[in-house]
């Protein structure tokens, strides 16, 4: 693993460059402040050492102007740094809409990554240069943290919640990927690499490799294997809600409320059918909790999304 050694001031992502300039500014401010205090202490210690012949009468005990200035000046500087860092920080949460979505699943001591076309990787992430990438992450067990030092990005990955992180790589090469939140015995072995490739080479890599069925075909297979088609096919005898052009539509529930059939609603209906029962149906659907793991669920959801007429 010949990852490029990290350098302090040369990040490899668009947002990272802004973080580096802020880091440099802070280094400058705090450096001068520390040197100023140290120089003053050393100067006073030498000049006013015991026994030196120097004017010592009535040492000042209060100096209102000095005290006010050394309170207000740091306050102004801090507020400036605060505003600047908040501006940069808010960009971490504003992923561009055309970002390439990659699904990340963190489990105890490995990263499982899955591209939109179903290509899966473990502990390695191939991304194209200059294209904004958005990672949708969740964890299967303890809290992990997806951390790429070279891109200056880090985001905790929580169980029971999706968290997201986005970046735009600006340099080709292999970069370290670490887990930054203590997650158990092999926390320090849960590292990997992010490989940035020119877009053409990336597209070719994406298409190559073991031809795995993409998400939608795998989803269709699961849809049949687990018997969903038995009830939800239009011609089935069982009275079950139709799934054609369900994704994105508004569903009227039995208790009068309405819900948008988005990822969360579909996932809920699969794992907790009795939670939001559509109007006019009995809660007879069995729960698939514990039988479908995360990958199958992602595939099934992709298939339901791809049903004809489903709004993208």
């Amino acid at each position, binding site marked *: 693993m010949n990852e490029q050694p990290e350098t*302090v001031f040369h990040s490899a992502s668009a947002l*990272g460059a802004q*973080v580096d300039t*802020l*880091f440099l500014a*802070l280094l400058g*401010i*705090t450096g001068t*402040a*520390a040197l100023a*205090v140290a120089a003053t*202490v050393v100067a*006073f*210690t030498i000049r*006013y*050492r*015991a026994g030196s012949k120097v*004017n*010592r009468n009535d*040492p*000042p*005990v*209060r100096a209102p102007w000095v*005290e006010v200035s*050394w*309170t207000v000046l*740091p*306050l102004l500087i*801090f*507020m400036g*740094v*605060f505003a600047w*860092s*908040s501006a*940069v*920080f*808010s960009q*971490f949460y504003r992923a561009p809409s055309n970002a390439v979505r990659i699904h990340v699943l963190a489990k*105890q001591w490995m990263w499982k990554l899955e591209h939109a076309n179903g290509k899966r990787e473990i502990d390695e992430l191939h991304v194209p240069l200059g294209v904004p990438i958005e990672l949708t992450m969740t964890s299967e067990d*303890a*809290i992990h*943290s997806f*951390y790429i*030092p070279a891109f200056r*990005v*880090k985001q*905790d990955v*929580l*169980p*029971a919640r999706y968290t997201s992180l986005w970046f735009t790589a600006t340099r080709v090469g292999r970069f370290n990927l*670490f*887990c*930054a939140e*203590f997650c*158990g*015995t092999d*926390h*320090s*072995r849960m*590292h990997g690499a992010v490989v940035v490739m020119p877009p053409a080479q990336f597209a070719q890599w994406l298409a190559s490799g073991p031809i795995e069925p993409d998400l939608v075909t795998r989803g269709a297979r699961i849809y049949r294997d687990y018997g969903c088609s038995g009830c939800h096919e239009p011609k089935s005898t069982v009275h079950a809600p139709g799934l054609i052009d369900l994704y994105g539509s508004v569903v009227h529930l039995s208790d009068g409320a309405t819900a948008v059939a988005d990822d969360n609603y579909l996932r809920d209906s699969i794992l907790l059918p009795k939670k939001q029962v559509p109007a006019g149906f009995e809660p007879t659907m069995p729960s698939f909790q514990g039988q479908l793991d995360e990958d199958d669920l992602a595939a099934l959801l992709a298939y339901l999304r791809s049903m004809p007429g489903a709004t993208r």
Partner: protein
Amino acid sequence: MSTDESKVLDRPSYLRDGYTLRSWLLTRDHKRIALLYMFSITGFFFLGGAAATIIRIELMTPGADLVDARTYNELFTAHGVIMVWFFLIPSIPATLGNFLIPLMIGAQEVAFPRLNLASWYVYTLGGIFVLITLIAGGVDTGWTFYTPFSTLFSNSNVVLAVVGVFIVGFSSIFTGLNFIVTVHRLRAPGMTWFRLPLFVWANYATSLIVVLATPVLAMTLVLIAFERITHVGIFDPSLGGDPIFFQHLFWFYSHPAVYIMVLPAMGVASEIIPCFARRPVFGYRAMTYAIMAIAVIGFLVWGHHMFVSGQSMYASIVFSLLSFLVAIPSAVKVFNWTATLYKGSIALSSPMLYALGFVGLFTIGGLTGLFLAATAVDVHLTDTYFVVAHFHYIMVGGTVMAYLGGLHFWWPKIVGRMYPETWARIAAVSIFVGFNLTFFPQYILGSLGMPRRYHTYAPQYQLLNDFSSLGAGVMAIGYVLPLAYLLYAMLRGQPAPPNPWNAAGLEWQTSSPPPQQNFDRTTPAVGEPYDYGRSTPAQGQGARTPEGAQS
């Protein structure tokens, strides 16, 4: 022993009130309880230090050469738990605070002596629980006990460790409660609030934080233990629990806890620097307001530990603003200490070396805190060695240096004998050098992206880790020195006069070591807290040069 020495020694003092074990273990004298605390926290300090030494040796090589992953996790957890709750939090309040606060305010005793002794027993009971945890195989969740790892996925004895920390929390609550009531109700006549020494102010503010923050930790730990036993709890993600809710509860205690550790150290520095600069402290009122401001704002900033934990962006920005505000009082205090040196006549005795070391290292620690308060930079730096270096600069560079400085400054008063000055200066310098060599490389490691709590790391970080391990060796030697010569001074040091440093303050106006009821005649007259201007040059330094004093 020469005649004057024996004359000095047979004066009644709290040390010679009884030699039996019973007289020490059932004492209600705040001075003896201070010594009981001093010995127990020194024991825990070297236990935690041993864990740190093994960690530093393991980290000299990228691979796993010394210990396996599980043991390494248990080592850094033991280092964290022992150092935070069993050394740093009780270090200055329970030893120097217990001994000096009644003396400094002219009282004979703390408000609730029995509660003071109970506090030490509760501390020891908590210590026994943690020792049992170590023997029974340790706990590998880190001192932060983050759920759901600590409640669902860690199979080390978390419940035992949690009960130990729960119990020791009450020992600091009892001490805090004692100090608040003592300072409010038992001040000598004439000792108004703005004549209190800054050491008493610092410990008073610390006690406020302890009393209001520790119970929240106690309940959080109860909830963790409950969840581990019944396997169902409010942090369990499968029952609608939110791991970030735990982090809110934990850091609501743990950030004020770092102010519990550093405020007493500020108090010690504010006592030592004016004494050895032979002039009153600069801006006494500003210092007291800064202490109280740190105590109050310290409660509002805990969210800066959770910028990347999935906390909402708006909350992170609010916490970032408040974290910048809490840095202002600390900056004001550093400027005031520096200004206290102006127009003084500075003697670089060992307490002064420790105090100036404290000011220097605390400044670096505080300034690097700004990197972590700025949200955008914190995204890169949190959970890396940058954070490890930051809090070690504040806790080890700040609290431990000030604790050693305080120990040296008041050692003549505590044991009635002087310590060898040259050895003390060697120890001070070696600790300062060793410390910087250990922790400054970790700032660089952190900004290069080495995550914390890593048993094995990428090979490119090895060189800086080797520097750090080398520094840890030098620092370890530096810490063993005071243990040796202070014990030697306790037994066979030269008898100390009542006021060896010619310092101002009520504690120096009684004999050293002081009698059981603190002051022979009625409590002495109370003047301005730091009236060094008028007194003669330091009798301690003037009368004897360090070399001449060696017996």
